[in-house]
């Protein structure tokens, strides 16, 4: 089952902050965040693992709440280059496959 992302879309002005949420009906073992710009392949942003380990870009932050089966991606002081569609993906105990959500479209205005 696909994780649920919210909001579906958001429009911000440059410099504003954004939070994108991801929730799962199943226990989370890992959460993966990707960004896709129009016409391009999704690109890795961050991995969060059960137990607290994180791996990703320094300028991106995220949280992982195992009990609530949720993760949030925090984009602070947004730049025009942050525009795109953000996908969260969840991994199960076997971790072999990642199931992605429907995405959140983020548009940054100058």
């Amino acid at each position, binding site marked *: 089952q696909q994780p649920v*992302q919210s909001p579906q879309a958001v429009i911000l002005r440059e410099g504003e902050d954004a939070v994108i949420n991801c929730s799962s009906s199943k226990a989370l073992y890992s959460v993966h965040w990707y960004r896709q710009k129009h016409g391009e392949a*999704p690109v890795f942003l961050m991995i969060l693992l059960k137990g607290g380990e994180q791996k990703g870009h320094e300028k991106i932050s995220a949280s992982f709440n195992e009990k609530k089966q949720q993760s949030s991606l925090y984009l602070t002081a947004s730049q025009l280059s942050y525009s795109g569609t953000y996908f969260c*993906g969840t991994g199960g105990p076997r971790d*072999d*496959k*990642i199931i*992605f959500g429907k995405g959140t479209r983020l548009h940054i205005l100058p």
Partner: protein
Amino acid sequence: DVKVTQSSRYLVKRTGEKVFLECVQDMDHENMFWYRQDPGLGLRLIYFSYDVKMKEKGDIPEGYSVSREKKERFSLILESASTNQTSMYLCASRTSGRAYEQYFGPGTRLTVT
């Protein structure tokens, strides 16, 4: 520089044709994936492979099959293409293990007429 390549960026096929989408990765990754991307539906997993000749169904395997004869190559096969299979198809690969990122190919835009 890591690379996942797909055989075509754009493909137009007729209903009923057998269609092959090829994906090659040069990173010696164990895991390879095929996703389908449609507006409003996100990335949906069709099939994945965790080793040569090994495969598992994803969420939407109906109408598709896969082949992985060599570690670097993963093929998606539409046995008899239908118009509802018109979509963007993305291949990805990843090292086995929970803490590794997935690399995506550029995608193949398939149109079935």
